[in-house]
């Protein structure tokens, strides 16, 4: 990495022409995606939703060092709030979405209360319990459709109705882009530095005058808000919601996205969410996986068990990440970058 001589260079959104160029390419790709891969539009939209969740979870796990295995709970709260406000109360989509995010954020505060005193496995079980509890409670509240769920019809913006896949994609992509930029700015701000100090050593951080309780709670709130917003978008994208979408394995999948992508990096969240979502969605047609697809197809007994293969691959990737490359996909990218920058040394 090149040397930064001034604080401004570090917090600057895009530093250097290379970053600006790649960011521009990325934005153009996001805009052009529906026309480049019209058949894969649902997959790309789903990746967008999962990117938002991964961004939030990465702030909590990667930057603050607090584990959460119950993030599907926040997603569920956001999804149900958005849908109920839209369907029963006739509130336009943007307001309902933000309300969903804010309600998830409030639940984030509730989860943060015990989390302030816990660490390691104790925090893991507390968050896990939260996620499972939310799923069971949602399935039993009368008026929320029970285990059958509720169906959703399009995004009602108040003045117009978006029901086309392309329209929904652009809404998701726009929100994901804004939230990605926001996440990056949060990480670089004073708050973000406090998060990282807590991750590296909470005792040293509190000795340096960082309010541990306040910042941990804030981290949970931000993370839950991201998940809530993503939940609302997911509901609209799928067209229905039911409690089984928010199983605890889904939380583990979110966790896998962050780890595979790279803990503590915004770009890592994007890469991880894309990779894991791609694997999950394409588990039904394994032979489309590049390079090793035909081999996987050969090894499977029949189509119904192929979802198992996705789990195996994701699991192996997680283990390899810990054993070989703790920074995940982003770490590999960094290594390539450094290799070429210092080439031929």
């Amino acid at each position: 990495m090149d040397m930064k001589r001034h604080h401004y260079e570090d917090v600057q959104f895009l530093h250097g022409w290379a970053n600006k160029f790649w960011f521009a390419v990325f934005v153009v790709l996001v805009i052009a995606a529906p026309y480049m891969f019209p058949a894969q539009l649902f997959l790309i939209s789903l990746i967008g939703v999962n990117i938002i969740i991964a961004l939030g979870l990465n702030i909590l796990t990667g930057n603050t060092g607090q584990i959460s295995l119950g993030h599907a709970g926040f997603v569920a709260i956001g999804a149900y709030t958005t849908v109920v406000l839209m369907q029963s109360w006739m509130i336009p989509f943007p307001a309902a979405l933000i309300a969903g995010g804010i309600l998830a954020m409030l639940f984030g505060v509730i989860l943060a209360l015990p989390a302030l005193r816990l660490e390691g496995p104790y925090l893991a079980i507390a968050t896990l319990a939260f996620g499972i509890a939310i799923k069971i409670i949602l399935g039993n509240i009368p008026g929320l459709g029970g285990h059958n769920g509720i169906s959703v019809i399009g995004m009602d913006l108040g003045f117009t109705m978006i029901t086309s896949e392309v329209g929904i994609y652009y809404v998701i992509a726009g929100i994901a882009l804004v939230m990605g930029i926001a996440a990056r700015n949060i990480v670089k701000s004073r708050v973000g530095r406090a998060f990282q100090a807590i991750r590296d050593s909470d005792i040293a951080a509190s000795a340096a005058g960082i309010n541990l309780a306040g910042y941990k709670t804030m981290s949970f709130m931000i993370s839950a808000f991201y998940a809530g917003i993503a939940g609302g978008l997911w509901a609209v994208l799928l067209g229905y919601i039911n409690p089984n979408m928010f199983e605890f394995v889904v939380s583990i999948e979110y966790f896998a996205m962050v780890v595979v992508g790279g803990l503590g990096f915004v770009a890592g969240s994007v890469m991880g969410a894309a990779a894991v979502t791609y694997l999950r969605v394409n588990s039904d047609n394994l032979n489309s996986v590049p390079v090793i697809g035909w081999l996987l197809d050969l090894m499977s007994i029949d189509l119904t068990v192929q979802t198992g293969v996705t789990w195996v691959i994701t699991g192996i990737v997680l283990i390899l990440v810990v054993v070989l490359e703790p920074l995940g996909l982003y770490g590999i990218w960094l290594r390539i970058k450094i290799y070429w920058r210092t080439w031929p040394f």
Partner: protein
Amino acid sequence: MMDFSEIVTLIVRSVETGSIYALVGLAMGIIYKASEVPNFAQGEMATFSTFIAFMVLTVHGAPFYVAFVVSLLFAYILGIAFEFLCVRRAKNPTILSMIILTIGLQMVLYGLSGWVFGTEQRAFRLPFSQFETVEIGGVVISHLGLATIIASFVLMCLIYWFLEHTKTGLAMRASQQNSMAARINGISSNRVVNLSFGISSIVGAIAAMLFAPIITLSPDLMWDPLLKGFAAAVLGGFASLPGIVFGGYILALIENLFGLWFSLEYKSVVAMGIIVLVLYIKPSGLFSKHYQRKV
């Protein structure tokens, strides 16, 4: 209000399910004490071992005791192999990366058991029937329930005897208390951790084989027991093995009482809620001492 025999029946039922929770919790506790790794893969390791037993039973038609031994052997090898190939080689062994590692193994085994053995529900039979009952002092209990209670009690006694009265157990306890001091005295802490993974895998496999006949055998067999066992371990305090066993029984009792008096739907939620509440008051569980971490 309930009469006396109803209360006794409830307690016996709780001891029955509590035994499973306690065994899973013990399995996690043994690993946690040795290496500070909360093993999320415990359930899937146990499920996979049960699948092995099932295959030996049905495909090869072997008697139950052969299947039992083969399965335990497999569980032991799985445990030590995971420790040797993955846990030991982690680049940056923080608690977070250890949790990631075990979640990774959980995913691999969950996928593999669906992939290799299929996802359909299968009936796993033990020589003890779930439907034939005996009556002891006015309490009706199934053969399977009785076997579960006795087997888990024997296993707990064995673990206690192993840790307290054998040289290896002493080495394990020494390594848990202070791994540096143990190493100075010539105890290989790597081997202790390795052994802990093996033993815990066996304990988990026994729990899964006792639990499998109650519901059917499928890749998600151990999800619920794992969560409850984990919760029991957290409730009692991960660092204290007797605490974990008590945690298992208390958790089962709370669940059954709530299920009887209020609603069955919410009984898992309440159990989890109580655990979060307990953790809020005692962050290291009921029975273990809370150590303030130092710099």
